């Protein structure tokens, strides 16, 4: 979604200063926030609007597994 990127820089600065940077980057480096999922994406046949391939899911896992 486009507006996702247009959030205020104030908010971004705040998140940076809140300590998520050092902390959560460490979480990423340690590879521990990998989605050990108990929820998942609904199957396409269960979705009223869904048709997407699982590309976003792969990206999510690539991101979260790091």
């Amino acid at each position, binding site marked *: *979604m486009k*507006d*996702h*990127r247009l*959030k*205020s820089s*104030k*908010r*971004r600065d*705040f*998140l*940076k*200063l*809140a*300590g*998520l*940077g*050092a*902390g*959560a*980057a*460490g*979480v*990423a480096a*340690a*590879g*521990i*926030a*990998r*989605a*050990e*999922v*108990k*929820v*998942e*994406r*609904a*199957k396409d046949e*269960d*979705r009223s*609007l*869904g048709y*997407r391939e699982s590309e*976003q*899911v792969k*990206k*999510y*896992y*690539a*991101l*979260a597994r*790091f």
Partner: protein
Amino acid sequence: MQATDEAPCAIIEEDALRVQAYGLLARLLAEPPSAEFITRVAALEGDASAFGLALNELAAAARDASAEALAEEYHALFIGLAGGELTPYGSYYLTGFLFEKPLAELRADLARLGIVRQEQRTKDPEDHIAMLCEAMAGLIAGAFGEGPAALAEQRAFFDRHLGSWARQFFADLEAAEAARFYRPVGKIGRHFMEIERQAFAMAA
């Protein structure tokens, strides 16, 4: 941060960090940590912020922890013979009972967002704190729909299903009698919920 280089989806660095924070909380609260996971947690390093210091506390607690001891602690806190010390469900926090209206509302939102419970992994109601953290992580990262959920959507989900009670739950966890390792988990969660609340307010 390297993770964003790996992931071409439109997610900015700050949001990647939020995904990590939610993911960490989800993993810590979904089930007792494995020995391997404890070793990884022990390696975490935060900065001098309140969130970072709590992360350092957690890492220190992990260095003194064993999988057996944490399984007992998890059980005493969240499961227990006659119920654990805490009941980590939104419906319970908001109404005093499980399976009440807040869960029904959550289920409607999850269905709309294309999020389902992994039936083979859990039978917990969906308003378990770990599942909600995972849902937030997935919304931010775009695991469920057509890319990352818009910030307004994230905020609506947070306000409706986490913002009203999760901070209190994490404060209770921090103060729980049985909590040792989970005390800094509560602190991390409490700080992070406050960060989220303030950050959403800034974007409004």
